[in-house]
């Protein structure tokens, strides 16, 4: 199953279980989404449970908040994460604070899905990874799956969650894992074990990280596409590195991180978003505070450069295996 199919499957399972689950967004209804994540839902569940919206991200999230407060469980799609900004006020000022400001009288069980990340020559407006803009906001949960199985399980958990969840889908992973090697053909998910996804409900709880690869010499913290980049970098440099796939950025599985770094004494944080004030800053800040006496080298960050996402230069922008290997060598030598 591709990640697209897994996401679609999660919708189907959730919509069959609970009549309150509705899906909407730009091109989401009749056509089934520009990435086809909602294909077939309108036919199956009717036009009132899966429908097209006007091109207004504000309107999509704003009305979804009203629906969620009413008692529905809307799952909305923002066509690209780069287009979430018009909805940012509704997300930050409204969805995130509704439970708090009404002391639980009104709540907002809402999932906002959005494709993130680069690698498809989408340039500045089809490549962004804005996770840190959500993790800074009290009241939001932020999730980033790295494979079809997790995507389905985490999306089901997000839909079941009583609070707003930002669900970031690395679009470069939709059809197969991408390890940062632009010059190699990528394997489809059908040939990958994480592409095997069980039918029905899968439990992948929010807030629990996954040790994607065990190792003793250093800890690589990654999520989304960068999990695969981490794997390939570790494979290539041959070091005994542990890779943590965070899955959920907030709430963060700090315990898993601390246990790993206390064991390895070395840590590298990876993400595709711009470096400065990225989520890697939070991770590095936490790790140095929690594992200070275990650390044998500074926590390094490998991230997107502090520029807009360029078009022609996207391979140079993307923090690929070469940069990760350099960082691994640096922490191991440190």
């Amino acid at each position, binding site marked *: 199953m591709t990640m697209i199919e897994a996401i679609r499957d999660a919708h189907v399972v959730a919509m069959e279980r609970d009549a309150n689950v*509705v899906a909407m967004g730009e091109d989401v209804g009749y056509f089934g989404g520009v990435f086809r994540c909602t294909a077939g839902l309108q036919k199956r569940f009717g036009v*009132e*449970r899966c429908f097209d*919206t*006007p091109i*207004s991200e*504000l*309107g999509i999230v*704003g*009305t*979804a*908040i*009203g*629906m969620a*407060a*009413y*008692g*529905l469980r809307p799952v909305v799609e923002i066509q690209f994460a780069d287009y979430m900004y*018009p909805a940012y*006020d*509704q997300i930050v*000022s*409204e969805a995130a604070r*509704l*439970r*708090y*400001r*009404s*002391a*639980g*009288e*009104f*709540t907002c069980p809402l999932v906002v899905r959005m494709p993130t990340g680069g690698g498809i020559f989408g340039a500045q407006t089809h490549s962004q990874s804005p996770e840190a803009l959500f993790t800074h906001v*009290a*009241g939001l*949960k932020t999730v980033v799956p790295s494979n079809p199985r997790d995507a389905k399980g985490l999306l089901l958990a997000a839909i079941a969650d*009583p*609070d707003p969840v930002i669900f970031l889908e690395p679009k470069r992973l939709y059809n197969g894992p991408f390890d940062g090697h632009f010059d190699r053909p990528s394997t489809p998910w059908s040939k990958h074990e994480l592409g095997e996804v069980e039918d029905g409900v899968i439990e992948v709880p929010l*807030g629990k990280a996954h040790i994607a690869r065990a190792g003793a010499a250093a800890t690589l913290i990654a999520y989304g596409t960068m999990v695969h980049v981490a794997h390939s970098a570790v494979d290539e440099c041959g070091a005994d590195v542990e890779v943590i796939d965070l899955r959920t950025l*907030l*709430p*963060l599985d*700090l*315990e898993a991180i601390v246990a790993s770094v206390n064991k390895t004494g070395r840590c590298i944080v990876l993400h595709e978003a711009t470096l400065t004030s990225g989520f890697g800053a939070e991770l590095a800040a936490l790790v140095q505070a929690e594992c200070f006496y275990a650390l044998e080298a500074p926590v390094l960050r490998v991230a997107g450069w502090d520029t807009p996402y360029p078009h022609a230069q996207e391979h140079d922008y993307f923090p690929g295996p070469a940069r990760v290997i350099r960082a691994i060598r640096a922490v191991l030598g440190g």
Partner: protein
Amino acid sequence: MSDEVSPRLHVPAPAIRAGDTPDFSHVTIPRAGEVRRPAPDCGAEEMRDLAFSIIRVLNRQGEAVGPWAGALDEDTLRAGLRDMMMLRTYDARMLTAQRQGKISFYMQHLGEEAISCAFQRALRQGDMNFPTYRQAGLLVAAGYPLVKMMCQVYSNDGDPVRGRQLPVFYSSKEHGFFSISGNLATQYVQAVGWAMAAAIRGERHLAAGWIGDGSTAESDFHGALVFASTYKPPVILNIVNNQWAISTFQGIARGGAGTFAARAHGFGLPALRVDGNDYLAVHAAAQWAAERARRDLGPTLIEFVTYRVGGHSTSDDPSAYRPKEEGRAWPLGDPILRLKAHLIARGAWSDERHAQAEAEIAYQVAAAQKEAEAIGTLHGGRRPSPRDMFEDVFAKMPPHLLRQRHEMGY
């Protein structure tokens, strides 16, 4: 094109500013009873004229005239008068409490009482308002306990929202009053979503969005109209045009448009423009729009024309930007006096009964205030605990917040 000229920036300005003599002669006020009442299933295109006039019921003699006069019985009207008097008294008390430093901030309704008080009486249990900070009459008319309202304002231990919100940012699901945001306009589009949810579930509830004249400039206003006109859910979209947005007169937000109500036309939605100081007109318009919603005829936009007699909030001194006496010159009069006059004209009220009601209400409000203050004020008595600060960020407290709460010592 020999008529070419250099462009210049046209900055709208009110004719009259602080220090001048108030003058509303430019405001055209149609006579009461003059505006027609289309059937609620009338197409938006057939009633465009209603966005350019003002629906009025009470004339100068206090009579209810014309097709919008409705049929409210005397008990209901007396209850409405009481609601407005209660709200005004409550406001006065809370203003004083603010000046005494017992609360941090307050926003009053002076002159605008009819709108929220009358509107609420057209709603039913299960309908939901998405109010701004100037519609506490919705709560009063819905019978929300005064003491509870005050506890919110005092941010004391009786505050249902645990001291987390600014004074007047009430919340009561049971009374059809959605939690107030503080960010202007954001809830207008949520009201549409709430109504869409009712439509998706096929349940007979309607939503009412509320927005100020100035706030119609915000993006959410547009989002609300776009989604409302697309899915036609049971929603009433109210604009309270009280002429001012803090120091900015309504011409800045309205630009060159005829009226705010006319904004609906570009969306194919029907619009009413209503005398907001006329309890009967407000109620009739609300009823008309509610009937549309309940017959699944789609959304209605209503502009209530009124005047903000008081300051914007306790942080504001309007004499810096408009004539002090402008409120008194406002041609639509005082909503309480007008309804009072109507009831007297109907023989259902008297100056004596009014004075007595005033006294009763003053007593009731004072008693409630005493009760609320006995619990606590912003700075003393029983107050929400710092522990409360960490609750309700999420349904279940995640580890990092628990840790922070422990760090805080709780």
